[in-house]
């Protein structure tokens, strides 16, 4: 019996929830789960609230479960008290649902802004503060960064987010699944495919529907194109932030090729609103296939030379190697996914850890490195882009014929579903409960960056202020994705 089994046994199982179990637990079991998280026996995958209940997704290798604690008095024992990665999720749940985490060391609001906001303190001779944002110098999303620095050296960084809070969860409640899928696709624009996929997969699981094989294959094709385009973008921007514009220009050109191919293939450069509950809304025709194949071939032609330049440019390596190190222990504790975790020795990719169709039938590696620095995060992206090229080949070659869409069955009573889909940044967790009329009762979407942002703060300590943009870009955490 594992820790997770004990927790599942101790509660009462909700039958209409899939594919992983959801159990209603009591306070002692909830606190035991918190202790197991703090001890590193379990990994936190999400924590969210609704009226009078708090939910927490926890996992161990290859398995996960949702624990639900009823809290009619709107109070529950804080998980963040012993396991800091839960803190911001608890603050968000408090802002959105009024659920109070008892004993939490951080009672400040998170998504709902009210000034003044007390930043964490750093005291000592020679320390000064630098306040940056929410409006930044570049074309990026808004967030505030508060540095405490001693000369050039950063002593403490604290991020304040929530600026793009749009009330996503409240908007989804009561919406049709079709409308909610569109909202899901607008939680984080660079991951529109992954979010829409995670949401519809949760809905389809709740309804016991399997979308047609061709639709599933096309979803994966879009997801890999999205991953590829984003990785190309990120590699280029990291080089740009190290003042190496040459590679930025070349990677940006390759990325533009991918977006244009996506436009030809699916009619939208970012492939938005194409994944719908039940299937996909657009088929892939011959010109689209050719465009994708041509973009892939162009990348393969340029790739060895560009990677070689990244490897051989001393001025670039000087900036990226050893900068912004995430320690493996911290990545594990935080349950950091995506290239952030995989660059720091945490081997977790939702496509491999909780395989979903069609990845269960595809061949790909999950690259992992140990260094945890900016360089490692770039190299993980390089390796993953290569894997995506191979996956695109496989997906195009094995595209089955058949329908694109299966009509959604009626809900027939309460139905709950969950999905874990690997976006380019890491795993997106989608949890949904449907009403009997098929509309969304409650949906929660958890971006990978909830567990990556705290690592930015940890990684930058002791680095110089001038390396922050470079370091931050190597994480490229979501703003809108976590601001909800």
């Amino acid at each position, binding site marked *: 019996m594992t820790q997770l089994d004990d927790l599942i046994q101790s509660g009462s199982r909700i039958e209409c929830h899939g594919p992983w179990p959801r159990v209603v637990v009591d306070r002692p079991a909830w606190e035991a789960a918190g202790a197991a998280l703090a001890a590193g026996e379990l990994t936190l995958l999400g924590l969210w609230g609704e009226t009078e209940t708090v939910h927490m997704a926890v996992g161990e290798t290859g398995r996960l479960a949702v624990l639900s604690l009823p809290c009619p008095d709107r109070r529950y024992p804080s998980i963040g008290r012993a396991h800091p990665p839960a803190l911001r999720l608890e603050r968000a749940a408090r802002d959105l649902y009024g659920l109070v985490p008892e004993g939490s060391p951080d009672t400040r609001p998170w998504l709902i*802004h009210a000034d003044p906001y007390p930043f964490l303190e750093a005291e000592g001779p020679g320390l000064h503060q630098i306040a940056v944002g*929410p*409006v930044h*110098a*570049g*074309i*990026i*999303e*808004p967030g505030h960064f508060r540095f405490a620095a001693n000369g050039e050296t950063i002593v403490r960084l604290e991020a304040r987010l*929530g*600026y*793009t*809070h*749009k*009330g*996503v969860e*409240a*908007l989804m409640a009561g919406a049709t699944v079709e*409308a909610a899928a*569109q*909202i899901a696709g*607008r*939680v*984080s*624009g*660079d991951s*529109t495919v992954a979010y829409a996929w995670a949401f519809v997969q949760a809905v389809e699981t709740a309804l016991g529907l399997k979308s047609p094989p061709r639709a599933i294959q096309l979803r994966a094709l879009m997801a890999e194109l999205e991953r590829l385009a984003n990785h190309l*973008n990120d590699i280029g921007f990291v080089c740009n932030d190290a003042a190496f514009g*040459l590679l930025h*220009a*070349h990677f*940006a*050109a390759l*990325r*533009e090729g991918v*977006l244009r191919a996506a*436009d030809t293939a699916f009619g939208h*450069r*970012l492939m*938005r609103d194409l994944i719908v509950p039940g299937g996909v809304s657009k088929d892939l025709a011959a010109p689209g296939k050719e465009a994708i194949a041509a973009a892939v071939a162009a990348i393969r032609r340029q790739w060895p*030379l*560009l990677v070689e*330049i990244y490897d*051989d*440019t001393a001025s670039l390596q000087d900036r990226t190697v050893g900068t912004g190190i995430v320690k493996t222990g911290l990545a594990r504790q935080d349950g950091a996914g995506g290239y952030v975790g995989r660059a720091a020795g945490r081997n977790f990719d939702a496509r491999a850890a909780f395989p979903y169709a069609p990845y269960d039938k595809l061949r790909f590696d999950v690259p992992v490195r140990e260094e945890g620095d900016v360089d490692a995060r770039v190299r993980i992206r390089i390796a993953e882009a290569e894997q995506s090229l191979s996956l695109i080949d496989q997906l195009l070659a094995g595209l089955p014929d058949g329908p694109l869409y299966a009509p959604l069955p009626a809900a027939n009573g309460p139905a709950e579903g969950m999905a874990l889909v690997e976006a380019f940044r890491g795993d997106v967790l989608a949890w949904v409960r449907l009403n009997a009329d098929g509309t969304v009762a409650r949906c929660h979407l958890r971006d990978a960056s909830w567990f990556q942002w705290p690592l930015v703060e940890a990684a930058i300590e002791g680095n110089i202020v001038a390396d922050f943009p470079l370091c931050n870009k190597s994480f490229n955490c*979501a*703003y*809108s994705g976590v*601001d909800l």
Partner: protein
Amino acid sequence: MRRLLLDGLLHRPLTEPPPVPDDAALAELTQALARAARRRLGRSLSLRLVDAGSCNACELELNALGNPYYDLDRFGIRFVASPRHADMLLVTGPVTRNMAEALRRTYDAMPAPKWVVAVGGCAIDGGCFARSPAVLGGVHQALPVDLTIPGCPPSPTALLRGLLALLEQADAGKMEKT
């Protein structure tokens, strides 16, 4: 790296030149944009972007304007780091309550004459977030808007087309500002 640089010298640039044979619309657009920008602003237009709660898709396409295919800089149009250097404020997103003040302060920091462009569906009317109490629902709720560029997100070509429309209006004297 030498090989890459040499390749760059020997091959045609990726930048789609104003008369692109296979993309007449973009060619027309870029040529006209260059003319209008020169007349009105002495060939320089400085843009400042504020993301007022977008999902970041609009930012992706605004960033794409700088890639070698579109190369916005060649028209004398560039994104600047400070609102104090900007002629034009591009705003994306449905204007969240949490960004409204930062947006107004950015606008106030810009010297006159200044223009505001609402970029993307959310900035125009709040898009699918319009009925959320967490957003104001479009840039016009916070600032006077001179131009809207629709799209979710607008493509780089649509963005260029929109900037052109604004410059032409400015040329025609329809939007004199003090």
